[in-house]
């Protein structure tokens, strides 16, 4: 605010310190709970139950091992299988639709897009309750495929909208160049559009993975023995000692933290599409 050459007033420095303080406080508000819960997940029981040790000083893997032995190993595996199936199904169905919205002009496009946007707002968890009767009839109840099909319903509107916006961002001139050199639509898509869209699509796939990984209501309603990790935590791990619960929370947030780290560039735009 001050003109060059003039020494800024002391108020300026005070404001800067105040501002830095607010920034640090905001970041601490987000980071501290994560850090504490991770430290507690690896804390020895002695340190956790000692009122003196605010931050545990002795660490162990035994909480994680006990949790895995309780059935979390299988539940984690189930979660991964369900999430991978969800990514495959929702991309197989959603990617073509996203491409159509991005690259074609056709009658009813706006209404269809609005329909997808509307469906994305639908509380998908409610389908789980009545789905049970259908699943029992089809033999899909308490199966990972059944959960993945329900998760696909939840993820599909997002996948359509996200892939569509990714394809829109691929310069159409490059596709036109492909046509000029005699490629047909399929070849152009496979050799030009897809490779250019790949980084964005990868981020979208991880995003879908996390969506399924985090979902608890449908998974808890649709499974009984084949629990996914969040459903397992809700039904079994809540009876375990506290430090075992913290170990569960650590496994739950691990993929999310990895995702934030590798795909942070895409995170905001992806959530922007999710909510806009």
């Amino acid at each position, binding site marked *: 605010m001050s003109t060059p050459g003039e020494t800024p007033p002391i108020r300026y420095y005070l404001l800067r310190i105040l501002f830095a303080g607010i920034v640090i406080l905001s970041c601490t508000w987000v980071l501290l709970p994560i850090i504490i819960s991770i430290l507690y997940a690896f804390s020895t029981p002695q340190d956790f139950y000692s009122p003196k040790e605010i931050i545990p000083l002795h660490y162990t893997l035994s909480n994680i091992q006990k949790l895995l032995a309780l059935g979390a190993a299988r539940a984690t595996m189930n979660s991964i299988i369900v999430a991978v199936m969800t990514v495959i199904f929702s991309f197989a169905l959603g990617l073509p639709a996203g491409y159509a919205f991005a690259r074609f002009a056709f009658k009813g496009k706006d209404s269809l897009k609005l329909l997808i946007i509307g469906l994305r707002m639908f509380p998908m968890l409610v389908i789980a309750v009545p789905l049970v009767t259908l699943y029992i009839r089809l033999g899909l109840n308490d199966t990972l495929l059944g959960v993945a099909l329900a998760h696909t319903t939840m993820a599909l*509107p997002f996948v359509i909208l996200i892939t569509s916006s990714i394809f829109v961002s691929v310069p159409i001139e490059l596709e036109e160049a492909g046509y000029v050199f005699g490629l047909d639509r399929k070849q152009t898509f496979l050799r030009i559009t897809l490779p250019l869209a790949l980084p964005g699509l990868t981020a979208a796939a991880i995003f879908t993975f996390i969506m399924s990984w985090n979902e608890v209501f449908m998974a808890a309603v649709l499974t009984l023995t084949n629990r996914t990790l969040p459903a397992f935590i809700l039904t079994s791990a809540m009876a375990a000692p506290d430090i075992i619960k913290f170990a569960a*929370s650590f496994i739950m947030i691990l993929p999310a933290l990895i995702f934030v780290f590798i795909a942070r560039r895409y995170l905001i735009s992806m959530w*922007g599409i999710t909510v806009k």
Partner: protein
Amino acid sequence: MSSNKQGYSLVERYLPYLLIAPALGYLLFFIGYPLTQGVLLAFTDQNGHFTLQHVYYLLYSPSSNFWPALEDTLALAAAIIPIQIMLALGFSLMLSANFKGKDMALYILIIPLTISDVAGGLIWYSLLTANGFFNKLFMALGIINQPIQFFGYQFRPMEFIAIVLAEVWRATALVFVIIFAGLQMISKEYIEAAEVFGAGTWTKLRHIIFPMLKPSVQTALLIRTLFAFQVFGVVMVLAGRDIPVLAGEAYYEQTILYHYGVAALYALIIAAISVVIGYIYIKMFKAQYLREVTM
């Protein structure tokens, strides 16, 4: 290729519909079928005859938790959403300034976007439980003599606070992303023009930034309200059924009591509330979308 041209363009004309049809068909089946089935479950008895017994159970049975669940769901929303909007506004204004480490701060603030409600609940449990971080910290500092109890039926008001803290911590990022995007769309010219006329920080906020942020705040408000009626994991982790919520009761009636009709009724109620909120949202969005298209 020219002999083929007619057929080619015919395929081209129907191609977008062919590409969209599988996804749309899947969605319509997996939403339409359960909804129809849900109505059947909610309004028929075992013999398939029409009945209102599930409705009566839901509304009047002493073992039904519907009214407390509705009340607590609304109370949680009323406690959580205003704090989230204000915090998100604060974060957005903070990050609209230029400073060193701004990108870092932005990434940190959006980390909770990827954290599930179950994990968010557990994380706050590790902070608030009797042997948790805050109790140990405040005891070491001599602020309290014995741990503050947050969990257990006799501490329901504290459980409520724990849920509010966990949800504000976890889901504010979502509100922040919406409002921050809205803030970045405000043209710098308006603000510069105001500065030319000598507007101070407060005047700029009050007369330019807040009015122009109104659409984003409305969007954030609606989406958060929509999600508020689906709140489940964080409540189950931190309070179980001590604080009943609509989705939690649906889960309980379905998986513990096997009252499929009642559970379906809960599902339909959540769906109906969401459709109403969603309808308002779509109308707003459509107006905005059309404005963008015509502009």
